[in-house]
């Protein structure tokens, strides 16, 4: 089965390992009620999302972390794409990762209180960023924060997956899968197989 996207498997691995029975929650932003399924009932958008797994306090943290990882900075981010709902749903469906999320969030809160005397969501954006930077940037890593780094990495994976599997994420990348093509697409840069001119134009 050559050509079956070695990397596609990596994506699938990220989220799929364990056993859980999950109820399908009422999504507000990305329910599988796509147009051509045509089920109007599924398109009703509840005003408030009720988390399946996270407590209200935990969910507020997940929302904030997702927004910080992929911010709404002139173009839509995790917030618009409903990434927190995605994460809640996937974690609710997967007991294998529930402990990691719960402990990670607790670690971050404890860390916030220790550093700035407040729970994470109560900090200013600047304080939040300075707490996360040692967890998210390799060259800012600090000893003793392995648990936090591990959690942040998982949180980032789920955020990236949730965002770039949403329609908003597809549009953000101008994902070619959004269009149809009449024929086998060909490189448009004739006469420069090594693409030196393209590289120069962007260097």
């Amino acid at each position, binding site marked *: 089965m050559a050509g079956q996207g070695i*990397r596609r498997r990596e994506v699938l691995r990220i989220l*799929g390992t364990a056993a859980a029975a999950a109820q399908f929650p009422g999504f507000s932003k990305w329910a599988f009620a796509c147009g051509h399924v045509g089920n109007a009932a599924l398109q009703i958008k509840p005003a408030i999302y009720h988390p399946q797994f996270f407590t209200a306090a935990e969910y507020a943290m997940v929302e904030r972390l997702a927004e910080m990882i992929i911010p709404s*900075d002139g173009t839509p981010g995790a917030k618009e794409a409903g990434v927190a709902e995605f994460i809640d749903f996937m974690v609710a469906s997967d007991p294998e990762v529930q402990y990691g999320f719960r402990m990670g969030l607790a670690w971050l809160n404890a860390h916030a209180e220790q550093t700035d005397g407040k729970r994470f969501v109560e900090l200013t954006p600047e304080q939040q960023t300075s707490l996360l930077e040692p967890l998210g940037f390799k060259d800012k890593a600090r000893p003793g924060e392995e648990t936090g780094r591990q959690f942040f990495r998982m949180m980032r994976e789920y955020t990236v997956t949730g965002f770039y599997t949403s329609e908003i994420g597809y549009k953000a990348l101008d994902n070619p899968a959004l269009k149809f093509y009449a024929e086998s697409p060909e*490189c448009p840069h004739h006469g420069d197989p090594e693409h030196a001119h*393209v590289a120069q134009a962007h260097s």
Partner: protein
Amino acid sequence: MAKQIYDVIVIGTGAGGGMAIKTLSEAGLKVCAINAGRRLDPEKDFRYHRMPWDMKYRGLDDPKRRAQSFGYMDNEYTKAAWDHEIPFTVAPGTKWMWPRCNAVGGKTNFWGRSSARFGEIDLRAASLDGYDVDWPVTYEEISPFYTRVEKMIGVASTVQNRPSNPDGSYLPPFKFRCLDFILEAGCNKVGVPYLPDRCAQLTQPHEGHPACHYCGECTTGCDVGAFFSTPYFLLPKAEATKNLDLRTNALAKNVLVDQSGQATGVAYIDRETKQEVEVYGRAVVVAAGCIESSRIMLNSKSRHWPNGIANSSGQVGRNLCDHLYGESARGYLPQLLGQPSFPDHVADSTIAWMPRWQNLKDPHEEKFIRGYSVYPDGGCTEFPWFANDLDGFGSSFKREIKRRYPSPVTFGIQAPSLRSDTNFMDLDPEVKDPYGIPVARMHFEWDENVLKMWEHSKQVCAEVLRAAGGVLEGSGEDPEIPGWSLHETGTCRMGNDPKRFVTNRFGQTHDVPNLYVCDASVFLNCTDKTTTISILAFSLRTSEYLIENFRRGEHKAA
């Protein structure tokens, strides 16, 4: 009422079974085909242009189900098509990853479509390097069958004059993308080939089948049949003859024999009623896929065949070979950073390959014998998989994902394991499937030779990437677990000596002249090429030999 006797019972409807069914029924023989799973409905069972957000789990599927599933192709898009009710076990020390599609058409519904012919260098490999034995078939003999199969299914490629890759007749190739030209330039500097792959995917309408519409969803099932699969290309032709009785959800249990040990039919389990059913035929074709065919034969024990039917050689289930897969290198092409997104993956296909370049002049030129091929790939994919390897978070992270999006490249190896006495399947003495049939037990490890190929490929691919101006970021730590490729071969090898081989050079079993094998289990080994087109060619040849045996009165027609 007299019991109905068919001319031929065919077990399986994948590439091998599908070709047998078509060929036999077109020759006027009455065929009963039995298939372990159901018929797929493309409208319902295929992805049908659904996007990730159209699905409950974004195509990733419920973790609960994924824990029980096997492999990367078995996901939310195709979950109705894969079937894991029939388990298998592994011997201590063996790892085996094995997604299975029991639906009508089998794995041809979702295959990768790479379609290179075996060459003389493969069939005569033993004479060249002294390892194992030659195939009992020459390239000259099998070549016309490849030509006919290529005409039937349509293969897009070019004539390449490579010593390891005999050319055939091709539809226009897929066009090279930016990344192909860049990597080709790198390959030229290193001195390895970079060419259009051979892909059984229609770049123009062919034999009544529409051309590809570039939706990029091939491996979740084509809704218009623009690449070869038996349900689109072979079964309709067989059904048009009115000579085919196709029974679905029919799990073959064993081959039935008469007092002289000849095959008289097949016993199967109707998976809907759970009842055992017998069908009778003058000849039986086993084409359930390498492992499953061997399992059926080993489970066909009788007074005549205490070790399984047609197994006087003891070779049924032995000699298992598989393709080693792995990511030999990954990185990105700085030339493409920040470029507008480009439809690199809308053919979802191996546009290009680096066909075997090792041990061509001298079979012992390298530290390993034989050779491997590499499938380069990259560009804008459905998901920015590289994002998890980037550093940081926030606006800079988001911008970097967008900038990197057109630039990643990977190199995937396809390398053949060597035949050995320690790689085989047998029946698990204890574990049975839900219908009480003993399951297959796998015994397999990568051999030293194939692991040397893996190491070699990592060096060469890194060199190619750097020569192309690319940035090397790493490679797979280990190759994939055996079974990934779904290219098992060798468990009913063909050969002239009945003491050492299960079938003769035509796929007819030595012990039971009215029992034939039409899948990759008859192959001597797996070579560096993908198996499907060769299964089709060898099955066509075996089927015509079987028809000839009916004409000569060896098996009396119904």
